[in-house]
């Protein structure tokens, strides 16, 4: 029997799991009417969010990254959560080129924003971070 359409993926905070996460969400997204270019954008956005969970969220100790995706009214909704260190100042973190790690570009949030329709970031220092992105196939009429 068929149930609603969603996926939940849990992975430990390893850098080599970033590729797995984006492949899975890319494969899930393929059931919507996305172009290949849009699927690439989704993969980049997921890659950024999962990289942040691994690199920033769990910089002190390892933990679990939870990736959820579902289809809501023809849109893809993806959220990436960690129970890591959290973000003190979300507005500042979202500014392009801001990073707390000198070698990093600070472009992760900018990429997530450009490659999704909507981005929301919830975070509490000491509790963790959840990033939620939505994207609708563009050549489809709304409804």
């Amino acid at each position, binding site marked *: 029997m068929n149930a609603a359409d969603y996926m939940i993926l849990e992975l430990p905070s390893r850098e080599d799991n970033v590729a797995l996460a984006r492949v899975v969400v890319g494969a899930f997204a393929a059931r919507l009417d996305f172009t290949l270019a849009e699927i690439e*954008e989704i993969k980049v956005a997921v*890659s950024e969010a999962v*990289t942040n969970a691994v*690199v920033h969220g769990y910089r002190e100790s390892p933990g679990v990254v939870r990736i959820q995706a579902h289809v809501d009214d023809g849109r893809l909704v993806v959220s990436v959560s960690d129970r890591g260190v959290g973000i003190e100042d979300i507005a500042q973190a979202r500014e392009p080129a801001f990073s707390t790690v000198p070698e990093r570009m600070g472009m992760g949030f*900018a990429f997530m924003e450009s490659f999704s329709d909507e981005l929301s970031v919830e975070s509490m220092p000491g509790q963790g971070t959840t990033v939620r992105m939505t994207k609708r196939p563009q050549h489809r009429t709304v409804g």
Partner: protein
Amino acid sequence: MLKLSFRQDNGWLRASVQGELDVASAPVFRARIQEALDEHQVRRLVLDLRDLTFIDSSGVGAILGRYRQLAALRGEMRVVGVSARIRPVLELSGLGRIVPLERAQGR
């Protein structure tokens, strides 16, 4: 995930990058290029991205890191073979304002 192959060409080191460049493969990218630059004793690098199938901001950061390092040594860097697949990420990152991005033919 990531494969690099090198050849020397008229004073330039040409690195062909194949696979995916992200947070996991960036350290490999950095180390292998450093090794090859040392080995060939050159300060001019062409990155051929024709067979790069994925890149995100960690990957762009790794490319930019090579650029900065070479610039500090008064070297040069070029990026060629930019396919339609990865062009959106490279353009959005602003890398094109620093290093000219040369397209892949017919892509």
